[in-house]
């Protein structure tokens, strides 16, 4: 009994999957081979995400340390590399409290619901040629749909904690998440339009010129929007320590806290991988047949570094500034990008409906100019609007007393 994938099958192209499927298929029935090949792939991806999260917790602390002119964790292992292991062991052996009056089921579900979608998002990301678990033809939509489960999980955390600050943090988090969802989703439309496909593999192959050059505006909007979606500085009002303790995860301790942190840092890695795939050309590069995974890792690393750089550079914005930034700056920019790219695609495409390398280069030149102009125009438009109108000190005259100031 041996199982062979037909060469015209969608799954045939995936070398790792095919290898496992055919080896296992020699001795076991085909449906078992199918399940085992899927599990092997799932094992690889889960490890990639969780190890990535561990490396990013370490890397972020080291890099932030450098930014702030200090050393960062350096005790455990070479360069402090085993710090994530120490953190996990510590958190696993800490008492895990659930506050009185909290909703038991919802409270316990939250850590699982925050980590699982994150892992699921990697199912459609190709980390070398033809190596996505499932190269769905609706890949971008799958990522957007799965990633929005996180906002439900965050609200569940705030709702079930029976803590006022958790509730405030959750309300803020959801407001920020839904506001930045719109620009992010609109900015990806341009990518989908030029690649004429929602499959991430096809999008990578369409990038004769990386899309961050072809659509710099979309890349900027995507990066800013995703920083907010990940609750990272400068958009981290949802867990502003100086105002609302730790926001929605105030009441989480022990292993649940570890899982929520893993979701936050793993999110950076997964989103960086997606950004690298959609905008930096994913696995494409010299000798991409063999070194695809290396290019993919390098590009992901660059994006992760960018996220850490944002965090180190900008102070936290106020909630009104965050909202204004999304609705009055990023949304119009995403719209401008959409309109410009639509017109360019419409005018530049050939009769057979393809964009050549020259067309992409022309688009890149036009879009760079559009980016500069749009940022200048809309930046100027909201310059004074994002400033919060504080009440001016009033002069109050009290008879018999000298003038006092009331603010």
């Amino acid at each position, binding site marked *: 009994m041996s199982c062979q994938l037909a060469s015209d099958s969608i799954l045939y192209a995936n070398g790792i999957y095919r290898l496992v499927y055919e080896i296992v298929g020699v001795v076991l029935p085909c449906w078992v081979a199918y399940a085992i090949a899927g599990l092997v792939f799932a094992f690889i991806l889960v490890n990639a995400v969780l190890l990535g999260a561990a490396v990013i917790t370490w890397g972020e602390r080291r890099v932030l340390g450098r930014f702030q002119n200090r050393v960062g964790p350096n005790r455990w292992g070479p360069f402090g590399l085993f710090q994530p292991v120490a953190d996990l062991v510590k958190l696993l052996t800490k008492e*895990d409290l*659930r506050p009185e009056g909290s909703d038991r089921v919802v409270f*316990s579900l939250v850590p699982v619901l925050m980590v*699982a979608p994150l892992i699921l998002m990697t199912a459609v990301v190709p980390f070398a040629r033809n190596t996505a678990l499932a190269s769905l033809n609706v890949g971008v939509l799958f990522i957007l749909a799965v990633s929005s489960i996180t906002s439900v999980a965050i609200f569940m955390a705030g709702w079930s904690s029976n803590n006022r600050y958790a509730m405030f943090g959750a*309300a803020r988090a959801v407001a920020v998440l839904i506001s930045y969802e719109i620009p992010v989703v609109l900015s990806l439309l341009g990518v989908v339009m030029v690649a004429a496909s929602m499959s991430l593999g096809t999008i990578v192959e369409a990038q004769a010129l990386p899309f961050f050059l072809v659509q710099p505006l979309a890349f900027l909007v995507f990066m800013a929007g995703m920083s907010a979606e990940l609750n990272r500085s400068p958009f981290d009002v949802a867990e502003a320590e100086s105002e609302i303790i730790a926001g929605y995860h105030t009441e989480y301790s022990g292993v649940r806290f570890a899982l929520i942190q893993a979701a936050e840092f793993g999110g950076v890695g997964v989103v960086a991988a997606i950004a690298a795939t959609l905008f930096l050309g994913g696995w494409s590069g010299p000798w991409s047949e063999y070194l695809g995974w290396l290019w993919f890792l390098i590009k992901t690393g660059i994006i992760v570094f960018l996220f850490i750089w944002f965090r180190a550079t900008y102070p936290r914005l106020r909630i009104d500034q965050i909202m204004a930034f999304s609705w009055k700056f990023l949304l119009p920019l995403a719209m401008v990008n959409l309109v410009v790219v639509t017109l360019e*695609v419409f005018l530049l495409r050939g009769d057979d409906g393809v*964009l050549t390398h020259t067309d992409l280069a022309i688009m890149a030149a036009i879009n760079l100019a559009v980016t500069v102009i749009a940022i200048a125009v809309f930046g100027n438009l909201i310059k004074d609007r994002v400033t919060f109108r504080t009440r001016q000190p009033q002069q109050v005259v009290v008879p018999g007393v000298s003038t006092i100031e009331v603010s």
Partner: protein
Amino acid sequence: MLEDYFRQYGLIAIFAVVAFAVPTSLLAASWLLSRLKIRPQNPTPVKLEPYECGVQTIGGPWNQFNFRYYLYAILFVIFDVEVVFLYPWATRFISFELFALIEMAVFVGILLIGWAYAWRKRDLEWGN
């Protein structure tokens, strides 16, 4: 071919099971550690109070919160529905005629007018 198409979703289903099993198993490991007395688990009434910066908790979590959140939620729904229509259109736009362009321009234009109106009525501002 169609069977292969569904097989991909089968793989995602397997993957989803694994993705949910991993965090759940970590929670189970934590529970097991508390059973084996490696991890402390002795809650007291004071420990179980909702956290309030070290002082006694007064009042519950159910506070009034800002009315602004609803306006953003409504705007979000409007634009998200728009995007649902835009994605299939964008995927095939490269082979569409002029008519499709005008059609979508009208659709997006109506929403943009609404968005400009919201801006004009100062609904996009948090402060007032």
